[in-house]
Structure formats: C-alpha cells, structure tokens
C-alpha cells in the first residue's frame, strides 16, 4: 500500500455469540479488529473452532455484527437500512468445499446464477460468464460441460468463477485449497494472485495451510479462541514459532526447519518462509558454497 486510503473493509471490536441470550450461548468472536485495503491479501490463520468462518461471514453481512462494527466501503453493516444485496455483491464469499454446492447440470448455468439473480440481460450474463471462466483459467467452451464430468480441481475453480461472476471488489475465501492435490493448489493460488493484482481488488482467505499463507498473503491474523492472538506480516508472525505451536498451529516447513537448526546450535536466521530462502541459509552454513 502507498498512500493512506479508505480501507475496503474495516472491522472494529467485533464480537459474536451463537445462541445469544440462551443458557447454551457460545462466544465465537471477541474484540476482533481487521482492515483490508486494495491490493491486500489478508490471511486468517487459526485452529478449528477459532472463529475463522464466523469472522468471514461478517465480512459480507451474512451475519450482522452483534458487538462492534463492520464497514464495507465506509458503509456500516449494523445499519438496518443497509442494502445487504449490494454489500454481498461487493464482497464475494466462497465457502469451504464449494464444489458440493454446484447445483446445475451444465457449468455455464451455475456460473450464471449470480449475474442472473442480479437481473442482468442475457448478453451481459454471457459476458460475465466468459470473463469469470477466463479468470479461473477455464475455456469458455466449458460452459457446456456437464459439471459431473469435471475434475475436483476444475469444480473448485468453477465454483470460484460463480463468485467472480458477481464482479466483487473483495473476495473472501474459506479454506480455498483444502482437499486439492499440490497441482490443483498451485493453480488455484495462481488464479487468486492474478485476480487480485488488478483493479484495486483485495482478498481475505482463511486457511490451515501455512504454505498457502506464505505463498500469497501480504498480511496475517492469527485467530485463537475468537480473538486475534498475533497479526503482522507473514515473516513477523511466523517468528513466534513457540507461541503458534502452543495453539497447535503449524508454521511453514521451511521456517520450522530453520527453528530446528537453530535449536541445535546452527547459526541460521529463522526469518525464512520459502524453501529457496532456507536453502540459501543452509548454503551459508557451508561458507556460501553451493551444495
């Protein structure tokens, strides 16, 4: 980010409890702050049940804020008069395993669901489907493919296209790579970075997978028990390996290797996220010779 800009999404002191006001009340979010600006890829990391999904559902108004406030483009979501459909169009949300939610027979019809619910004319629906399929790296001809005959990775990308066809400015994703093979993962992350790089867009993604986070995220929030435990640049956050491990969170494999070497007394930096960086550190141990 360069100059200070109005954030696309701003979350202040957000709190949420399920079954509020009953004896079964469960607090799932407490005093959460978050900011998403154009160009950001914000990662939300946390163990199962840490409130990640609940937080994401606040970002497009699926859950209205109980405590605190959420602003999208400066519009407060707690305002009862807010145009919630416009908000949901602005902030696109892709749920976990979205391929289970495809409901049409043919790929194109599923992508067209959003544009059609906006009441767009057929020509523009077609245009949007073409653009969205293109964004996720599927040829336009795939619109006539039977969904049942697509691969799992293709189905995931098709579901993503369904959200992109709404032409959101912020894309919110829950565990976008869960269950994909390494190839499918790389492709999807490539699609996401490519999409985000254009037109003042931003991404928020929740993930278990630290490699995903290091690969694409510009900023990371670590959510534990409904509160933000740590936040910062990925490099800063993953420095605190002990703290993260105490909460059962893995750190990137390269970072972890460096921590292990350091514990054994090797003079390496733990400020490492990627394998090539780790390789350079290890080369350093051997006096800079390539190994």
């Amino acid at each position, binding site marked *: 980010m360069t100059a200070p800009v109005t954030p696309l999404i701003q979350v202040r002191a957000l709190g949420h409890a399920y*079954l509020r006001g009953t004896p079964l009340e469960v607090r799932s979010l407490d005093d959460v702050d978050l900011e998403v600006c154009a160009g950001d890829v914000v990662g939300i990391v946390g163990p199962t049940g840490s409130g990640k999904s609940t937080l994401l*559902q606040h970002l*497009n*108004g*699926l*859950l*209205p804020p*109980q405590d605190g406030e959420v602003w999208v483009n400066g519009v407060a979501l707690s305002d*009862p*008069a*807010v145009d*919630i*459909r416009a908000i*949901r*169009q602005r902030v*696109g*949300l*892709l*749920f976990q395993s*979205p391929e*289970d*939610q*495809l*409901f*049409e027979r043919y790929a194109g019809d599923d992508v067209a*669901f*959003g544009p059609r*619910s*906006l009441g767009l004319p057929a020509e523009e629906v077609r245009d949007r489907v073409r653009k969205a399929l293109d964004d996720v790296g599927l040829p336009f001809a795939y619109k006539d493919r039977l969904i049942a005959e697509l691969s799992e990775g293709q189905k995931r990308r098709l579901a993503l296209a*369904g*959200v992109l066809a*709404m032409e959101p400015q912020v894309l919110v994703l829950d565990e976008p790579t869960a269950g994909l093979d390494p190839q499918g993962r790389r492709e999807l992350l490539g699609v996401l970075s490519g999409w985000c790089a254009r037109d003042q867009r931003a991404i928020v993604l929740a993930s278990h997978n630290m490699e995903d986070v290091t690969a694409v995220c510009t900023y990371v929030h670590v959510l534990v028990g409904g509160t933000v435990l740590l936040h910062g640049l990925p490099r800063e956050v993953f420095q605190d390996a002990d703290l993260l491990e105490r909460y059962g969170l893995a750190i990137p494999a390269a970072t972890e290797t460096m921590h292990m070497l350091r514990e054994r007394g090797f003079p390496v930096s733990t400020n490492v996220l990627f394998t090539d960086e780790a390789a350079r550190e290890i080369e350093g141990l051997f006096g800079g010779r390539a190994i």
Partner: protein
Amino acid sequence: MAGPSEFELLGRVTIGQYLPTGSRLHHLDPRIKLLMVVLMITAVIVSHSLVGLALLLAVVVAGLLSARIPLRFALAGLGPMLPFLLLLALLQVFAIPQYGAGATVIWQWSILKATDRSVLAGALLIARFTVMVLGISLFSFSTTTTELTHGVEHLLRPLQALGVPAHEFALVVNIAIRFLPILAEEAERLMKAQASRGADFGRGQRNFIARTRRLLPLLVPLFLVSLRRAEQLIEAMEARSYLGGKGRTHLISLRARPSDYVALVGVAGLAALVVQLSAANADAFAWHWLTDRLL
C-alpha cells in the same frame, strides 16, 4: 435487512425438545411411556364423551405438574392454533350437514343453524385437540430421542418374530436423528453461499414463481449431499461388517420396574374408563344430573 435468524434452521427443528427436570416421570421406562401415549391417543380418538375427555385432560395436566414442566411450555403449542381451532369448531357447529339432520335446533339465524349435536361436535373437537397437544408435549418434554428409539425398537421386538424388521426400523429412526442436524447445517451453508451470490432469502416474499425458482438451487444439492453422506455411511457400515439386527446385543438394556407397571395399568384403566364413558353415554347422564340440580 439480514436478521440473525435469516439462515438459522436448527433452532426451528423442534423434534427432541427435551426438558431435563429429573422428575419421576422422566425416569419411567420409555417403552411404558410410549405405550401410555398410544393408549391415550386411542382413547382420545375413540371417545365421544366430553366427561371422559375432561378426565383425561385432568390426568395429563397432573402429569405435567408432576414432571415439573411449566404449563406455559406445554400451552405454547396451543396458542398459535387457537384461531384455526375455533374456526374448525365453528365449521363443526354450522357446516357439517350430517349434524343438522334430525337433531334439535337450538339456535338459528338465516341459513346458519346450530343443533345440540353440532354444538357437541364442536366442543368435542376442541377438547380432543387440547388433550392431544398437552399429552404429546408431556411425552416429548420428558423423553430423550435416544430413549425414544430404544423404546420403539423394544416395543416392536415381538413383531420381529413375524418378520417385521423392528431393529432395522429403529436404526432408520436413529440415523435420521443423527442426520438431521448435519443436513440443517448443510442447508444453512447452501443458503448462505447462494445469498452471497445474490439470491434473496428474505422472508415475507410471496411471489410463487420466484420462490419456486430459487428452491431448486437449494433443494437439489441438499438432496445430493444427503444421498452422498448416506453412501459414505453405507461404506463405513459395510466396512465394519454390519449385518443387521439378528443376534445383536444391546449396550443399554431396558428394565421396567414395578412403578412402571403401576403407571401403565393406571393409564390403561383410564383409557378403558374413558372409552366406556363414551359408550355408556355418560355426557347425557352428566347433563341431566347437572340440570336437575341447578334448575
């Protein structure tokens, strides 16, 4: 505006609404409780006697009190029905031609005509529904779903000898109870995903075409997800060599105590009495007795 309950389905699934007060009624053998409910329902349906139904009502209310279930909980089920209940009663009084023929007319205004028989029919209708609502509430507030499935299976066991797959049926009920929250969650997720893509689930919308059109995107994946989950469960059960009910032992064995039998005999006696009252035309007797004293 998205209310907090726009997508919340689980809260409205009321089967298995259990109120653990730990009363003696809660501890009765579930088989006995089931039998008692069946007896009560039969008596309510068969009986044509207001006196008998009043008797049943008194016993059910006593049961609710002794089970320490707040009466307002049980009555909550009656509230929303009241207008329709009255409408149905009025239909009985004025619109069923059979009650009009050959009976004494006690009130008439142009084509509206109430006879002694039609008024009795209306009163019976209200009494029946009230007893039924309170009785079944009593049962469901004091019995867990686990107890219920065990009760059903044990009661049906004698039928197993006749070839009725009682154990399997109990398993069906069990699986259904376990699937219910999973499917509700799945439905909620689908609704949210589609709302995120511009679908409008705001209630109060009464447009038939619009509602039907947005149903398919919701229902088709919901059916497919439940069938897919079922396939996974089938695989898991077959991998563990599930072979059906024959020769299976039970982790929980139900044992009826003397107090259970006392309760059952009591209710059976009551049911028989109510049916007998109806057959003996007790209402007419009570009516004459009352009018003789009062007038």
